[in-house]
């Protein structure tokens, strides 16, 4: 087995002393309320993986903005849920870049509908090697929005990231995150509510997921691995 240090150096650009939770997992917001399996994680992030750039829209460093410390901990727990779901198909989420848009800049982007979500992703972009995910206070007309098979060129016109709101549970927030990033990586709705990509069996355009939407198929895993943002380390 490759050592943690080797993986940290090769895959995460870490050197010197580092924290497993903070630097290897990218969970910068304090303690986790989930058990973390380091062995699985470092194996996964060496294989096909993507990076995420997580934007907190309307956040203030002293938590006086849109998100409390508990909210940020819920975000990192949700990422861990998404990591577990993707792990079924040996797909990793390697690096997490955390960004925030201060309240003074966020303007109307704290509460968005589908078209404002597109504007938000056009206006803001994180590092080129990470898929942008924007956490907003409220998505008025859904729980999240994402482009299916999104571009890797952040200067592309249209939606160049995923936008989502937090739900009341870590599990469901993690499923929504996995679902939206799954869209970006090329997945469409499946027709099975127990699948991460949810139910749109009758093709009426409503994609629904719930707390049981935890499965990912081999075909879906292969689609994700074929996305332009995915690389091996």
């Amino acid at each position, binding site marked *: 087995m490759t050592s943690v240090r080797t993986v940290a150096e090769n895959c995460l650009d870490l050197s010197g002393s580092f924290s497993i939770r903070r630097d290897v997992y990218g969970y910068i917001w304090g303690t986790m309320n989930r058990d973390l399996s380091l062995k699985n994680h470092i194996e996964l992030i060496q294989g096909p993986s993507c990076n995420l750039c997580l934007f907190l829209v309307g956040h203030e460093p002293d938590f006086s903005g849109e998100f409390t410390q508990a909210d940020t901990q819920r975000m990192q727990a949700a990422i861990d849920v998404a990591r577990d779901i993707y792990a079924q198909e040996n797909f990793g989420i390697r690096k997490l870049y*955390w*960004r925030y848009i201060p309240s003074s*800049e966020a303007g109307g982007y704290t509460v968005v509908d589908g078209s404002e979500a597109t504007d938000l992703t056009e206006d803001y972009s994180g590092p080129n090697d990470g898929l942008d995910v924007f956490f907003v206070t409220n998505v008025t007309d859904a729980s999240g929005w994402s482009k299916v098979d999104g571009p890797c060129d952040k200067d592309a016109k249209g939606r160049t990231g995923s936008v989502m709101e937090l739900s009341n549970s870590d599990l469901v927030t993690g499923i929504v995150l996995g679902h939206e990033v799954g869209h970006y990586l090329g997945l469409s709705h499946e027709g099975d509510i127990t699948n991460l990509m949810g139910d749109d069996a009758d093709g009426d355009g*409503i994609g629904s997921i719930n707390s049981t939407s935890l499965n990912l198929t081999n075909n879906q895993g292969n689609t994700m691995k074929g996305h332009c943002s995915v690389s091996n380390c």
Partner: protein
Amino acid sequence: MIALSPKLSRVVSDQALDCINGNLSLDKNEIDTLTKILSTKGKAKSPVNRKRAVNAFIQVAKNRDFPEVLAKILLDSTELNATRIAAASGLGKFADEESEKALIQALGKTNGHLQREVIKAMGRIGTEKSIKALDALSENNDPGFKHTLTFARIFIGYRIKGTSIDSEKIKEALGVQWIKLQSNPLSSKKLQENIQSLRDNTFGLKLSDDIGFEIMCGKTSNTLLLNDKFKPGALLKNLKSRSQISGIVAARNPKESISTVRNIVITNLSESGIDIIITRTTGEVVYAGDAWPEGELWKFTLRDIGLTSAPTTVTGTISDKEIIFEVSSVSQRRVKTGQRI
């Protein structure tokens, strides 16, 4: 207890989340049931997520009871904020006296995100009545709030006939800057310098050493260099003589002695005058337009095409003696990166 069809149950269940709203279709009975759930707060047989129900209602209800149902939800302080926000947003999709009335009523009774969503909705459908109501909020100095408020007022102002619009205020409120750059003829010495700085990289064109133009854009000098068929005193005549590569646009930083070709100017004779396209050196067309006779002069206009973050127009006139043109652009919208945590 209100019974829900399997489809409606799936659409409004509080055990599920919407990830994409699409072309939802419900039958008449289902729409009636949905209206009943929302307007009476009647208990359904399975738990309902009222935000999802509002969004479904917005998609399917169209004209039916639309403002009344949503207004009731918006004004009900016992509803969750997310549900009321969805209702406000829905009212902003239906221009109707009742919708506006409800939004105006809600304006003074709400704050924070909900109030901003109400303002946004008023901007989309409001009339003079909304402008009056919005004026009462102009003392709030929060920049984000001010922007939403101003934009809503502008939006309404543009829709209403007879409203005077202060364009300077609009530019200020929207943070837009128009930039106008005037062309200047190059002196003979400067023209020579510019041609030399291209180091023969002229795409095979012989360039005129009699006439060229400069536009300063920041610290960069952009020069329009014409092909040597263009002779002083016969510029228009030369232009009309044939379809041709009329010139190149080169850019040069004053600290550097080397210019690089940025664009190629192609002019094609047409029935109405001359079609003009400006390409990158790769052949990708970036500006297009035409020139047409107007009295003794010819006028021309070019606009950038395709994706751009700084919309630009080039307008000007051509006579045998001179070419005068102006470049108008708006301040560039840059991709922002947020703050590092």
